């Protein structure tokens, strides 16, 4: 049996780094995509030595349409799994004043992922197999003053994935929306959050892999956020407005 192939876009993000090792352990061929090829080089050498698998590195700058286009043209494989692990929290306060920052948040978290999503959705629909995993966020469930630029972009991504899931269902292609809660990563290292609410990239990555194996539609991790999510969604607007989180 030929080994399965997994493509990870945004391979140097913290959740992706953990996911890579889980897929590697399970014998997948890995295609790693990121802006920093030197980082990918470290990771892929390690993967090859430890797991004896094939690993290929690809350059992509998600902020640049030409780079996205070039990647789609050079990447000639049809992977079994595509993971979108791209995120940019940005600086909310700056985005309120500065269109460039606001646009950057929206582009990285939503707009610029669309050509890639389209491409892989189309080829998977044709070949009638595969899984698309998109890492969105719990922040996309309801806009909050602390991060509504990021949240609204992730909300768009969540809805996009939802539509895509419905479209690809008949082709037998599964689309998984991952909504991580707060995770201690390089993106969030400056935020303070109670420890009980904190997830680790390792645990979230494992939940994602389990979700993939079980053909889930949504993965919320850490599990406490299933409950938190429900409350956030159910809170009446009048009360929500007065809350300070």
């Amino acid at each position, binding site marked *: 049996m030929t080994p399965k192939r997994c493509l990870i876009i945004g391979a*140097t993000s*913290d959740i992706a780094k953990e996911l890579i090792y889980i897929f590697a352990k399970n014998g997948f061929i890995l295609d790693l995509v990121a802006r920093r090829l030197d*980082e990918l080089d470290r990771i892929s*050498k390690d993967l090859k030595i430890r797991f004896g698998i094939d690993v290929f590195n690809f350059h992509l700058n998600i902020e640049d349409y030409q780079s996205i286009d070039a990647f789609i043209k050079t990447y000639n494989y049809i992977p079994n799994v595509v993971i979108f692990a791209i995120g940019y929290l940005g600086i909310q306060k700056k985005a309120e004043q500065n269109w460039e920052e606001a646009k950057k948040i929206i582009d990285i978290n939503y707009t610029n992922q669309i050509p890639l999503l389209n491409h892989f959705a189309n080829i998977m629909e044709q070949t009638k197999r595969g899984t698309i995993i998109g890492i969105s966020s719990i922040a996309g469930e309801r806009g909050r003053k602390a991060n509504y630029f990021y949240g609204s972009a992730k909300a768009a991504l969540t809805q996009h994935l939802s539509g895509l899931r419905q479209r690809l269902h008949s082709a037998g292609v599964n689309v998984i929306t991952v909504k991580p809660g707060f995770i201690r990563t*390089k993106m969030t290292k400056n935020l303070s959050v109670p420890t009980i609410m904190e997830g680790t990239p390792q645990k979230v990555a494992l939940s994602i892999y389990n979700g993939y194996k079980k053909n889930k539609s949504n993965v919320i991790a850490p599990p406490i956020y299933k409950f938190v999510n429900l409350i956030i969604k159910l809170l009446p607007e009048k009360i929500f407005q007065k809350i300070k989180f």
Partner: protein
Amino acid sequence: MLISGWGRYPKISSNIQEHWSINQVQSYIKQSDEIIPFGLLRSYGDSALNSTMLSALSLNKILDFSFEHKTITCESGISFKELINFLTKFGLNVPVTPGTKFVTVGGAIASDIHGKNHHIHGTFGSFVESLRLMIADGSIINCSKTENTDLFYATIGGMGLTGLIIDATFKLVELKSAIIEQTSIQAKDLKHLLELFEQNKESTYTVSWLDTNITSRKFGRGVLFVGKETDEKRELVLNDPKINLPCNFPSNTLNKSTITLLNNLYYFFNKSGVKQVSFDKFFYPLDVINNWNRGYGRSGFIQYQFVIPKENSYKVLSKVLNIIADYRQSSFLTVLKLMGKANDYLLSFPLEGFTLAMDIPVSSKSLDLANKLDEVIIEYGGRLYLTKDARMTKEVFIKSYSNIEKFIEIKAKFDPNNKFQSLQSKRLGIRL
């Protein structure tokens, strides 16, 4: 965040920096005024502590591995546990290991660690073929015995003061078996114990426990443990700690009386004989207990480790035991070992002679005792292990490490603004 070394003394409030890529580490080093790299914080004293500390743990990749040539290139933050677990699949092993598997490759190089085979194989540093060091200006420098030699000799054993070790290439050894044949030999007194070391110096692994409690009938009794690899084919398994000390014991739990009792029990239960023990148990007996350092209570302990040239060994060790008795102090986890020849790394600890390591709970009296012991050690040409030290004075250090001037000169060349410093390097004046 309050942080300390393994001895839990001293404790300082520190800004801990973790970065996830070489690029980020580089820009952090460039912009910072003062830092010390650290790994798993198994050095006992203050050598890895500073107000800002840079974690190397995210540098945990294996970059090259040759089964044929028995070499590996890996980043500095990878732990021995992880590395051994990887190597054992190929029947290979790290060439030198300390008493715990929870150390990093970077720490092993910066401390130029030794193990139970030092008298045969030397330090970990003697197996290092090359390393890449990120220096103060953020550039990465290749160092080996043929390239940037001065920096190579300063960095191995250099306590992280020359820069951040990014990765290193070193020789591996064959792992003959995961089962060690351990011969225990009781020594009735110090003289006997030192003789036993001489008699067994052809054996690969030797180490002994020494009773620091002396009476008219027993003076320096101990047990020598000799390890020999067997031919038995069994899978090497490294266990996680089985017991966890969840909180500090009261600070006086390990006092003179309880330690005397423990020492008596230890001697009683370690009769002479031969048995087969696992690799894990032979090399890492204390790894069974997670956070065993909490046994010494909130105030922590110092590990006092010195080495003295062989010709003065009996004399100095006798003096040391007498001084400890005078101070009415005691140590339980006391380790005595015969070391092989010194190497050329500038701040490397070992020299040919005996090394003694003991754990003493921190108090004003025990710090006094340590000062007293320092006088004897330097008088007879010995020195203290920087990786264990938390308290020696600059004077003692300078008298015992004869290459210090050369080290400082090299450090100044690559780190002119003295960016890499620790509490220890400040205390010992390791700077221009």
